């Protein structure tokens, strides 16, 4: 009696508490999913969020209306649903009858509760009563095979004639598999969900490891009804199908048993690790309509979005990294990547003063949407089902003078990046290994930005530029200032070395120019080829230089095993050409490149093995005398014969010429994308490999969302009303969305300020040139927890408008993090409004 009284009082006190602020007490949440069912929190059926605590071996349930956990019967703690050790995956699916959903968990270790062994299984949670326990287990070892591991999970809502399904992606001894476990309502009146018997026909032998599964969403019909999707999309690192295509596998589930579904490859040019599918209404692309970025076609199309495997993408690969857009309707094309929506803008009938922009073609496919860090999960959010946040009417929003257009088929939602509110038809939230959740505006094909790309101090721009000083008796490099400033009554093109003027002489382009440091230097060292340890070797009377180090051992010098390669001199990306200057600093020797030699694994050409290639160097008296097969260590610098453009991130970018006339087209130099396929197939141009390497570095980074000229609402007579050059700092630009060069300028020279009468035309000075820095004009919008936030483990969208008191809520996202929290935020709300649930 004595001990029971305090407990009773405590329980009473807790019961009388008006707030259940016990906290959710997640322990390593590895997955989260929404479901409909019963809990002890409410008497009727409701909508909840299940969270898998992987370290706690349990599930927690959140009430999304107040973000509080469902409490245990003891009230002092949140409800714990014990699972098999390490619950890692969750999925739920509606049975389509308005009753409780099927909710399943998969643990890293098989369930010991019901299974005879510890093989793969689904743990079915009792959602049909407030008991909320693991009701039973669906063992899968029998159909997946012993030792199989479940690595992906997805739920598919029941549709007419098709039962609710839990799709199970697994890898085992026989390779990748997909099992479809069907569930039905019990006929005993309990409301329980019952797993249907599994057979061999329930399993599809994919032949690749399914890393992530996306289900085609229902399509809205003109009459407002919806048609269920029938396709699955599976991300995988493995080649798909007999052709060995990398990308996403599409499975048509409309007919036949799962065993008969044939994976059709959707070529994304690289393997994928995460996938999502959604209907998206693209913005209009119309260079004659300044409001086109805020207008939509009104008819959404199905697109598949996939995160590329970081090991197979990048500027040295066929495609850059990020989130690709796949258009499943592009059947028969080489790649199913969506087409590049940006088209080149025809030059104006009358070239603007300062010359036309450099023409750049559209790319072969829509550029991947960049995500800082590595993307890990994708979720798509659309307008909420009802309420004020579901927009159809033409609405003017604060950040633009353009009214937004939409249709009944394509409701819009509001987004709130740092640049201001806007409307769009769909967003994607992408988790990254850096702990952040990045926002993508799917209707505008790219990342949202917290800073303006085209206006103000944040815009894409040259932030500083200077001419490298030389003696007053020498020529100095500068850049041609060709474009007159807005409103100038008279203007004469000239070469400038003025640091205040130089930034304006360099064209940058939204979506192409990245943040970086640049240099245009006469006889400058080729990037990464300065003062490198290397060897000289001789063969057949020629002398060769290779940047490699002798690592000794028993291997002969004619074996590649003898050498550690320092730089692959024959790689076209390094830009070494015949005629370049070879400086052997320790030997006090300087000569030139006679030829670039491809990798020589046996020393047949070079005299010693040169696994990274070599250069044959022109004879010079300062060279040491080497017999055939002999070699000597030295320090090598390779310098360009003329000007060389380099970037701290991109390396070698080509060789500008020197403009000598006021003609704005004289020796214009631009780093711009060109057709990679054509360059790769070009066998006639010896510089084609180098141009291909540069073209890959000049791919589009992102799609800007500013409108074409003129700027809507611009004051009459102001620069903003110009048809070309309406944006300050972009004299040749009329449409930010159009493709353009990464960088464009014209080099010139300024005569000596104090000429030497004895030498009035001195040679150009080695090391002279121009250096400058650029910024990209993009600060990717993201959200992260206020504190903590390490390793997000998933993301999904949630619509609260069906919940009491939340009828006008915007769409929101839940993001579980492995450091014991769940992030909750809306893309319609500004930074700082996110909630961290612990």
């Amino acid at each position, binding site marked *: 009696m004595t001990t029971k009284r305090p407990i009773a009082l405590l329980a009473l006190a807790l019961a009388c508490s008006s707030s259940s602020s016990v906290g959710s007490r997640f322990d390593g949440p590895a997955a989260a999913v929404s479901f409909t069912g019963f809990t002890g929190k409410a008497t009727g059926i409701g909508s909840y969020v299940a969270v898998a605590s992987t370290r706690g071996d349990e599930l927690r349930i959140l009430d999304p209306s107040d973000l509080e956990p469902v409490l245990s019967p003891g009230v002092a703690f949140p409800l714990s649903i014990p699972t098999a050790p390490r619950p890692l995956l969750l999925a739920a699916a509606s049975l389509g009858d308005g009753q409780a959903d099927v909710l399943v968990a998969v643990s890293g270790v098989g369930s*010991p509760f019901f299974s005879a062994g*510890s093989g793969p299984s689904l743990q079915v949670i009792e959602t049909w009563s407030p008991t909320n326990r693991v009701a039973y287990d669906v063992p899968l070892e029998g159909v997946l095979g012993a030792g199989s591991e479940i690595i992906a999970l997805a739920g598919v809502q029941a549709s007419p004639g098709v039962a609710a399904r839990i799709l199970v992606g697994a890898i085992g001894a026989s390779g990748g598999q997909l099992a479809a476990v069907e569930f039905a309502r019990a006929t005993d009146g309990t409301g329980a969900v019952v797993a249907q018997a599994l057979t061999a026909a329930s399993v599809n032998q994919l032949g690749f*490891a399914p890393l992530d599964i996306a289900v085609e969403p229902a399509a809205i019909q003109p009459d407002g009804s919806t048609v269920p999707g029938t396709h699955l999309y599976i991300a995988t690192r493995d080649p798909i199908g007999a052709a060995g295509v990398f990308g996403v596998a599409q499975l048509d589930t409309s007919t036949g048993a799962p065993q008969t579904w044939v994976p059709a490859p959707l070529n994304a040019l690289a393997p994928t*690790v995460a996938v999502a599918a959604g209907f998206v209404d693209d913005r209009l692309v119309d260079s004659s309509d300044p409001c086109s970025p805020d207008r939509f076609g009104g008819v959404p199309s199905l697109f598949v979005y996939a995160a590329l495997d970081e090991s197979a993408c990048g500027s040295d690969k066929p495609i850059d990294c990020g989130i690709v857009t796949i258009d499943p309707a592009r059947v028969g094309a080489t790649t199913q990547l969506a087409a590049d929506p940006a088209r080149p803008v025809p030059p104006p009938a009358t070239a603007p003063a300062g010359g036309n922009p450099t023409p750049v073609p559209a790319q072969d496919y829509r550029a991947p949407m960049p995500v800082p860090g590595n993307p890990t999960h994708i979720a798509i959010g659309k307008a909420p089902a009802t309420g004020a946040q579901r927009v159809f009417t033409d609405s003017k929003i604060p950040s633009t003078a353009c009214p937004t257009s939409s249709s009944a088929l394509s409701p819009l939602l509001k987004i709130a990046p740092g640049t201001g509110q806007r409307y769009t038809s769909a967003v994607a939230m992408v988790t990254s290994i850096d702990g952040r959740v990045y926002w993508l505006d799917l209707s505008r094909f790219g990342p949202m930005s917290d800073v303006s790309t085209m206006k103000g101090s944040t815009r894409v721009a040259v932030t500083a530029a200077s001419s490298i000083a030389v003696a007053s008796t020498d020529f100095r490099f500068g850049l041609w200032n060709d474009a007159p400033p807005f409103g100038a009554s008279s203007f004469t093109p000239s070469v400038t070395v003025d640091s205040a003027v130089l930034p304006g002489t360099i064209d940058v382009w939204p979506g192409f120019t990245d943040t970086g440091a640049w240099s245009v230097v006469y006889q400058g060292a080729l*990037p*990464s080829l300065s003062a490198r340890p290397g060897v000289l070797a001789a063969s057949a009377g020629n002398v060769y230089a290779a940047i490699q180090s002798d690592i000794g051992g028993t291997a002969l010098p004619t074996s590649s095993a003898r050498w550690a390669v320092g730089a692959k001199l024959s790689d076209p990306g*390094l830009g070494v050409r015949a005629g370049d200057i070879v400086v052997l600093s320790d030997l006090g020797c300087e000569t030139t490149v006679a030829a670039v030699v491809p990798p020589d694994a046996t020393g047949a050409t070079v005299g010693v093995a040169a696994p990274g290639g070599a250069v044959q160097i022109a004879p010079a008296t300062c060279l040491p005398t080497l017999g055939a097969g002999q070699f000597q260590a030295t320090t090598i610098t390779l310098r360009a014969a003329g000007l060389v453009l380099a970037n701290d991130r991109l390396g070698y970018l080509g060789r500008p010429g020197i403009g000598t006339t006021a003609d704005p087209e004289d020796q214009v130099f631009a780093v711009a994308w060109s057709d990679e396929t054509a360059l790769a197939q070009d066998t006639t141009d010896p510089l084609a490999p180098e141009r291909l390497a540069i073209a890959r570095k000049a791919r589009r980074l992102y799609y800007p969302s500013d409108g074409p000229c003129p700027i809507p609402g611009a004051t009459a007579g102001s620069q903003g009303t110009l048809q070309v050059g309406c944006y300050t700092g972009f004299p040749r630009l009329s449409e930010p969305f159009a493709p353009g060069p990464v960088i464009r300028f014209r080099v010139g020279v300024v005569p000596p300020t104090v000429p030497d009468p004895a030498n009035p035309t001195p040679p150009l000075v080695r090391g002279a040139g121009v250096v400058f820095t650029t910024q990209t004009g993009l600060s990717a919008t993201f959200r992260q927890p206020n504190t903590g936030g390490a*390793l997000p483990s998933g993301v999904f969208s949630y619509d609260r408008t069906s919940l009491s008191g939340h009828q006008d809520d915007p769409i929101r996202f839940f993001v579980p993090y492995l450091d*014991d929290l769940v992030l909750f935020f809306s893309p319609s709300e500004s930074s700082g409004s996110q909630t961290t649930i612990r």
Partner: protein
Amino acid sequence: MATRVSRLFAAFALLLVAACSDTVVSSPPATDRFYYPTGLAIRHVDLTTGLGCVGGSASCQTQLLVASSNFDLRYDPATGGTVIAVDVDKALATPLAPLVAPALLGVARIGSFGGALAIVDEDSCPGWQTTLGKAAQALVASRSQNALYRVNIDAQGSLTCGAGCRVPLEAALGDPYGVAVACGTFPPAAGGTPVAQSLAFVTYLRAPNSEGFLSRIDLAAADNPRTLVDLLTVPTHSAVFDPVSTRLYVTERFAAIGYTPLRWITLAAPGNVAARNIFDVIRGSELRGMALSSDSAPGVPPSRAYLALRIYDVDQATSTGVRPSDDLAGALAVMDLQESPDGQPSTRILNVVPMDRGATEIRVVPRDLDPTTRKPRVDPVLGRPKRDLVAVTCTDDGTVALYDDEIGVVARVFDICDAISSDAGDAGAPPPCDPGDPLVGKQPFGLAVEALANGHARLYVGSFDRSWVNVIEIDPLQPSAAPVAWARIGPERQ
């Protein structure tokens, strides 16, 4: 009541006497057991030649060498550590039993607080035994003695630590921990002529101003000449050597928020220290162990590195100014080491895999080895060898994870003994395995891998707290499957 008071008084008096004592009883370390084991290493020794052999072949003995740290200073505080060599196959016949001959091959006494253990022999350093005529050695750094111990291993596995065994390290630095062996032909300094060298690099967990240093020790020279390698800021933790590229990679510990460098030096081209800040990609990360992939063709540098990461709360660290003592999470980072045209490794992070807290040691488990060449076979579908299986000890949470780099997911976690099973312990692990205890024993730390002739692999996982070593045989091609065999070597610490 009187008796209780008397007992309390007696106990108090005893404590008082003990506290006033000015002598410390110094007992030698136990030689029949591991005691807070840290570093582990495996050797395959042909008993007829004393050289390396293929595990499982005739006359080939598998030797397990274990460094014990004397962590609680139960034994002599100065030299209470040991290196113990056991014949694995004989020790497996008597699991959990005290280590005696013939399972026990040798014991050598070293300083307390030993760290990682490296082997220098013909396998790790070609020519060491055959050309230089030297005995195989186990290298362990002692934090209490600030010294590197070079323990001789004879052909039968007997250990001796005689003259020249204890090599003093930098007096101005503290806590030497990691050891890596690097043998090859390198110039001694920038611009020098390459000469054959047999080197050991020792890391220091502590240094003035949180700077990073390595000791470079010439193992072949008579007087252990030592040079100090300055790796700029941030104390060093572990070092791994790639003989193909001659790069020595060094992981570094926490020194400042926002900077988590992985550094490397190229021994064939000395002079430059390169670095990659992991914090740029993985916020709050701190490096521990590192392993290089085994799937590259001969003569080609490893394609990937695997990094064990601890993740701390950056916001708490920022507000308090110190690194929090506990971690938010652990992780395994997969790093691309493909060579760029400029000759540098890419170092792009390809994947980050959540691990349990306290990710520490990491080893690759080669899979699908050619029985003849002992090199990974080319998979006919992939056109390349399968990527490695990677084992990681997560010391804080008491688990060991197997990451399958071919799929990019964790294939198996050895976590806790089955909470449902009977007193007999977990069905998948040997006793003792009380419900709720870590399967491999509390605080798994040291890790070693042995490729077996039958295609399987043995994981050797030392439980720091329980002081045994798990020997877990797995099929690397079926990492999710239950272990083929599992036993524990060495008695449980009492």
